[in-house]
């Protein structure tokens, strides 16, 4: 399968890396030769220097054989034109554009349905705001994902040293949990992701991922000794596009909200557009300002400026001054492994969101959503079991699953099944699968219609 990526920025770079690891044929196009060098030195892909909206460059890159075009440059206009030109050259290629302008928000559906040259529009900022809201609502969670339209949640929590589950083997879990439906699907220990079996033990300090039905989520969290604290007061540091979106959402839920923004000009724009939110002009890392605004009483601080270092420092400062919890926006992937060490647990990344959304569209089979876990070592995906695929009609233990992958849930109509080895997947069931990076291409094969391989 051949994939063309226009734009070798952070999103293009990481998607290219992911796809190259999965043995896809990847061609990356960018105007900036330095950005391309970074790509070609680190991964096995082809790079072409030129504008992604130029027909000759796209032809050179082999658009006619490409199955998917991903237009992910920084400029909405370039992305739109790249899709348009690609459609002229190769109508059968699936085209996806990243569009970030808020003006386009209401037209995403229109783009998908009525504009012939674009198949999908993604805006990672919408996803980021959703992620922030989920993190706010689930206490103690450092990572929250949704399946089956939100009916199933997958949640990542740190295991405290004094938690009840510390030191417990997974096979002993049912005795402690009772009949509540909880399945531990992955454990991150010392930056290594493990898809655990019954013999594995949970240790303090582990980042534990589990699956739970939404209505039982709080019960499940109480097993991990995390208790719900309602969010009433939020402070947003950085009034950019994401900050504004978040504020609008919070206003709608009647949550008390303050925004600190450095630029006076932007502040007046925000003040015009927002009604109940308090817009403050100032520096988010200014201790006096934070104290003045009663940072100690704030339940959640969200740092969303465009400067990573400012976000990290403001979050640390806010926590120190007594804020309940801090959610930090970080774009640079190389910072992720450091976050736990410096005490920042809840991180959102527009780029990671963009990658997740894009991956969902690339995966074969009828994939409904895909989310990548911390450090990108694993993916959780929700897929419809096709009648012709290998996972249908046999007990799970008899299916030759790739190593490092498990079925974490089966959704049949309204019923949600947390599976055991004897469960059988029926056609058109929706399945939730967790897979280690190395197992992903194997999983794709099992899920896809067999005919595609003939």
């Amino acid at each position: 399968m051949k994939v063309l990526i226009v734009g070798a920025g952070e999103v293009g770079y990481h998607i290219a890396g992911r796809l190259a690891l999965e043995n896809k044929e990847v061609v990356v196009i960018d105007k900036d030769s330095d950005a391309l060098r970074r790509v070609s030195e680190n991964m096995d892909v082809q790079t072409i220097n030129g504008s992604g909206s130029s027909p000759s460059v796209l032809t050179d890159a082999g658009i006619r054989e490409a199955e998917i075009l991903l237009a992910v440059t920084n400029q909405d206009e370039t992305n739109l034109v790249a899709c348009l030109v690609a459609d002229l050259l190769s109508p059968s290629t699936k085209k996806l554009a990243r569009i970030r302008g808020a003006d386009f928000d209401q037209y995403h559906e229109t783009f998908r349905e009525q504009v012939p040259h674009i198949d999908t529009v993604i805006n990672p900022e919408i996803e980021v705001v959703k992620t922030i809201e989920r993190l706010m609502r689930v206490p103690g969670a450092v990572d929250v994902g949704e399946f089956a339209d939100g009916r199933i949640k997958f949640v990542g929590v740190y295991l405290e040293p004094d938690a009840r589950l510390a030191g417990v083997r997974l096979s002993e879990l049912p005795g402690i949990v009772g009949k509540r439906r909880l399945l531990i699907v992955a454990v991150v220990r010392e930056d290594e992701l493990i898809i655990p079996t019954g013999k594995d033990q949970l240790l303090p300090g582990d980042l534990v991922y589990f699956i739970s039905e939404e209505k039982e989520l709080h019960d499940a969290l109480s097993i991990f000794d995390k208790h719900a604290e309602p969010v009433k007061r939020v402070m947003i540091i950085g009034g950019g596009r994401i900050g504004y979106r978040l504020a609008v959402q919070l206003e709608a839920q009647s949550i008390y909200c303050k925004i600190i923004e450095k630029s006076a000009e932007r502040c007046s724009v925000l003040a015009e557009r927002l009604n109940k939110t308090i817009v403050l002009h100032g520096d988010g890392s200014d201790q006096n300002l934070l104290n003045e605004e009663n940072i100690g009483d704030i339940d959640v601080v969200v740092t969303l400026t465009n400067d990573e270092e400012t976000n990290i420092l403001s979050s640390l400062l806010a926590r120190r001054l007594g804020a309940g919890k801090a959610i930090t926006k970080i774009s640079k992937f190389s910072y992720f492994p450091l976050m736990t060490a410096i005490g920042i647990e809840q991180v959102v990344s527009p780029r990671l969101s963009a990658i997740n959304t894009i991956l969902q569209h690339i995966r074969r089979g009828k994939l409904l959503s895909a989310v990548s876990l911390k450090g990108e070592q694993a993916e959780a995906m929700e897929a419809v079991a096709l009648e012709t695929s290998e996972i249908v009609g046999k007990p799970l233990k008899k299916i030759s699953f790739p190593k490092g992958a498990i079925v974490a849930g089966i959704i049949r109509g309204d019923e949600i099944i947390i599976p055991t080895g004897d469960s059988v997947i029926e056609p058109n069931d929706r399945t939730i699968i967790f897979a280690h990076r190395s197992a992903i291409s194997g999983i794709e094969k099992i899920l896809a219609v067999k005919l595609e391989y003939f």
Partner: protein
Amino acid sequence: MRWQYIIYIVGALIFFLGLTMVVPLACGFLYADQSVLPLIKSMAATILIGGALFLAFRKGRVANISQREGMAIVTLGWTAVGFFGALPFYLASGEWVLVDAVFESVSGFTTTGASILTNIEALPKGLLLWRSFIQWLGGMGIIVLSIAILPFLGVGGMQLYKAEVPSPVPDKLKPRIRDTATILWKVYALFSAAQLILLMLGGMSFFDALCHAFTTMPTGGFSTMNTSVAHFDSAYLDFVIIFFMVLAGINFSLHYQLLRGQPLAFWRDRECRFFLGAVLVLTLLVSCDLLSAEIYTTIGDAIRYGAFQVVSIITTTGFATADYEAWPAMSQHILLACMFLGASAGSTGGGMKCLRIMLCFKYCYKELFALVHPRAITTIKLGGHTVSEDVMRSVLGFLALYIALFGISTIVLAGFGVDFVTAFGAVAATIGNIGPGFGDVGPVENYARIPVMGKWLLIWCMLLGRLEIYTVLILLVPEFWRK
């Protein structure tokens, strides 16, 4: 530097080389000659040692390798392959001393075609085939072949590929390095097979045709005969070989484009035009020179022998149908220039490569232009594409290093007691991976009389030339070893 990983990969290469020895072994069995026993011994030793290294260091496997490690793997891999490839010769009979066996083997893998054998025809058939087969393996690159075949090289493949095929502007035919390597080998094998059939149609025996097909496409130049291709004395065979030598001297990505249905691929490429033009003009010059000096009396003969020698030297193959040392001075000088010019970048040929010479001329012109228009902003373009400063710098650096290493090696070789012309010719012919040089190492002579130390020096020159200097030389830079 993660040595464990480097040794692991080199072990895999050695193991893989051992497996390829089954080809000459089968031939040895077929003819039931004396090569069977030494080949079995070498095969066992190579497979065992390679396999042992591979298994012992498998814990050192890593996900990604650096450019530095890639260079170390390629240079060490080639050196190891040169030594293990020498085993069948070394074990064949008492006459082979170590340096001779290694010389013959490295000359094979680097597709030089310089031989220390005084009587080639006396060699058992199995060893003759091995001699040709290693040229075929080395021509497209043993690492490129490994990338195509061994899946675990996939991730670090690009670094290895860049170190083994150090073209000034690397092309990737396909997004994945493994696909690129596979395509290159397929094109290469296809042309070799076509040549095999054409040679057999011209009356060559299957064995001779196979050996010559194995040494033409890699621009190697080992023959099964003492007098090289002259032995067959057939105009048809000469022209078949000329045709395939020219093909081998053209960038393989153009062959791929041609096979994919772009008939104008050769014409559109500036370097290819330059190379074919040079072949044509130089052939005409040499032929006229030969006619006027009355070496050959008919136009047909003058063109046949002139073209063969010009093509054989410019593509750095090194087959011979005539003793060019008996030719007039102008022809000899043209051939000497061909030794340095070499074939196209991305081909199997050696030398400085046409592309670099073209860029160098363009650079010189730019300098002259700047003297006339001191304030003009100019860029160097090739076929409509701007050549970046980085590429230009590496090209000029390469040319300077090539000349410098050539000069130093000539002086050292002369210091070992070799006469002026021979030292000059031998170094030019080994660093350019050609084979026959001038003087004592001319087209009808061989390298047997070079002193032992001189042979080691030439072995090094061959490796330098094949891996295009930087990859080998970088290992001598102290900074490379610093942690």
